[in-house]
């Protein structure tokens, strides 16, 4: 009974989880390097950036929106933060500035969508171009490199063998999961995505909350920028290209619908892991990079097909 309820409520995620586990099993059988602690930690570390970007994306997609600008915002926030950090100012200040830039760009997206009534696709497409150009102008096209060990520890240090990026990722997931499931903000996100008019008529300030959702998405992009910059010891103005696709893919594989009203962070995390494990496994198996693309595409399709079939049978 309880299991049935679990299936009902988390059905979508269990399907993808099954896909992920199948993949892990297959890889474990095919290569001895896969199922090692060090490799699994590597995967978790690698996945963290996409997974964090996907958090904001999930919330946006739940509201029936989309954010194409995550990669550009990541780059812009990254280079601004890097520039501050290089001025020998305290690390927290640099972080604050970087996150601030991310939130600012996100809120701007939100305002364009709510006050300007632009379709989210258009507003964030514009922002994608603007923030990218901004990052390039800001740095004259050059990467900003070389940071203090204190800052780099955000990517290189470990806690109980777990890499810091993974810990940050988990922190972001837990916080945002609570935000989505335990706060008014979360309820409104689902409600706006499910039926914006009914939400408005229930007395909710749709404009405000939608704007905040995009602000949150900017924030997670900026958090990802922090990790990426610390990891590469460099902030590049061309960082994060096509990250939006990866983030949307993780979200949708995880069960969110682009039509809004649906989606969970647990699902998104599974989606991001699926893609990360797949890429890692293909490298370990030494698959040629062309064939990799075919396999990645096929696995994404098969994973979600599996999921749909499971869901169908349950009905």
């Amino acid at each position, binding site marked *: 009974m309880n299991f049935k309820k679990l299936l009902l409520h988390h059905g979508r995620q269990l399907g993808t989880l099954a896909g992920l586990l199948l993949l892990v099993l297959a890889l474990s059988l095919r290569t001895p390097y896969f199922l090692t602690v060090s490799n699994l930690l590597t995967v978790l570390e690698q996945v963290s950036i996409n997974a964090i970007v996907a958090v904001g994306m999930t919330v946006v997609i739940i509201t029936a929106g989309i954010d194409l600008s995550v990669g550009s915002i990541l780059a812009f926030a990254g280079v601004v933060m890097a520039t501050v950090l290089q001025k020998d100012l305290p690390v927290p200040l640099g972080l604050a500035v970087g996150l601030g830039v991310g939130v600012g760009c996100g809120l701007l997206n939100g305002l364009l969508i709510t006050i300007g009534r632009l379709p989210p696709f258009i507003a964030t497409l514009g922002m994608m171009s603007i923030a990218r150009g901004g990052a390039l102008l800001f740095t004259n096209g050059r990467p900003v490199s070389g940071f203090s060990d204190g800052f780099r520890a955000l990517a290189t240090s470990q806690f109980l063998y777990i890499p810091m990026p993974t810990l940050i990722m988990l922190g972001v997931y837990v916080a945002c999961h609570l935000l989505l499931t335990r*706060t008014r903000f979360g309820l409104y996100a689902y409600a706006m995505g499910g039926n914006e*008019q009914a939400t408005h008529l229930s007395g909710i300030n749709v404009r405000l909350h939608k704007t905040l959702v995009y602000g949150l998405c900017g924030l997670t992009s900026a958090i990802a920028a922090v990790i990426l910059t610390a990891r590469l010891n460099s902030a590049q103005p061309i960082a994060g290209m096509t990250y939006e696709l990866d983030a949307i893919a993780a979200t949708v594989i995880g069960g969110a619908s682009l039509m809004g009203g649906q989606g969970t962070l647990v699902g998104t995390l599974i989606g991001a892991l699926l893609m990360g494990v797949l890429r890692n496994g293909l490298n370990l198996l030494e698959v040629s990079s062309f064939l990799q693309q075919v396999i990645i595409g096929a696995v994404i399709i098969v994973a979600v097909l599996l999921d749909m079939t499971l869901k169908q049978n349950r009905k």
Partner: protein
Amino acid sequence: MRGIGKSFPGVRALDGVDFDLQPGEVHVLLGENGAGKSTLMKILSGACRPDEGEIHLAGQPQRIATPHHAQSLGISTIYQEFNLVPHLPVSANIFLGREPRRAGFLLDRRAMRRQAARALQELDVAIDPAAPVSTLGVAEQQMIEVTKALSLDARILVMDEPTSALTGGEIETLFAIVRRLRARGVGIVYISHRMEEIFQIGDRVTVLRDGRKVATHRLADVTTADLIREMADRELTEHFPREAVEPGPPVLQVRDLTTRTKLRGVSLELRRGEILGIAGLLGAGRTELARAIFGVDPIRSGEIRVHGCPASLRSPREAIRAGIGLLPEDRRQFGLVLPLSIKHNVSLPNTDRVYPRGLLRTAEERRLAQECVTGLRIKTPHIDQASGNLSGGNQQKVVLGKWLARKSDIFIFDEPTRGIDVGAKVEIYRLMNRLTRDGAGILMISSELPEVLGMSDRILVMREGRITGEFTRSEATQEAVLAAALGTTA
């Protein structure tokens, strides 16, 4: 139909139901909200597959796999929930799937529009066939559904609450057509919660309860009370149990309200403890009045006072803050977030209670939702059910529950009992009594004249965006109200 069974997760919607339909009869399907009427008919029309059971058409066993298949077998259906494409014009909606064509593949839009105009005219509906459906009100959409189903020229016609959104005139036209079809030998399944209609139009009746068939009768052999007892398994007495409350000071005053679209100088006053009924025909502007007061549509001029103080209600948020609750007429579009659970829908306007300081109090949330499910007898396996999976009447109850949980003191009910079963109706009326007793004022918009006459302390009649008549409870009669609504003098 023999031994039909169907389950949804957590719900046994139908359990071994037998149902038969003769040519040239109107067979009424009766049952409480969630009894399984719509599901049974969806199985007949191919929209839904049964888990078990079989269907025989003219003696032949049939497996109806798709709506297309059902149509080709001569089964035409008016679904309870509208199935219209909002951005397409009326004409395309009516002929979707059966478009008139030229040269085999070219659409003949002109012919389509012409035929649509003719079909609409036959039903006495004044709707521009070229208008997109998204610009139409509920009643108009309902008429389009009817037009669409009738234009199919079917052997079997299923009508799932076709009149719930209609007013007197249209219902009469519809019945005339139903009688004509019956005379032509068409078999008609008719679902409605309006008991008086059932006796007016039906030949036989089948009562469903909790997914099981209770009995089939000839309507001539039974009384309303019998049917209600079979449906609800309990006695229900008085139909309109209005207990008048001594009206107090005005809670809501509207003066010279004019909008850019329809309203022209509407004034009204709603007092504490009063039910103010608003009657009118399709498109009279009643819904617009509700929307304008609730801050949904912008106001061009006029004044609104709440508890005697001027209030500027520019958004539903401000209206709710001022203590107003709106039950909209189109529950699916404006009332509910369908993918969300019952629980979450109820929480939505009540976040100050469920989310104090923005954080969820699970127990409070469950309590509120449970209260609403129990109090309104919403038929659902649990409060986490997506509201889109509920039967139509139960959805309506959830919307009601949203506002009851909030202790508003001004209610605007736009068609509050649309699609609600007899038992629940009486409960809602009792509830209105309780609310007024507790000091609330209710603005009740309804197209069901008996309801308006039975429940209101005072009645306003609207026509073309103006108030054209006012009656006290004692002086209101069906004829007088209708005359004011039509603009003729009685």
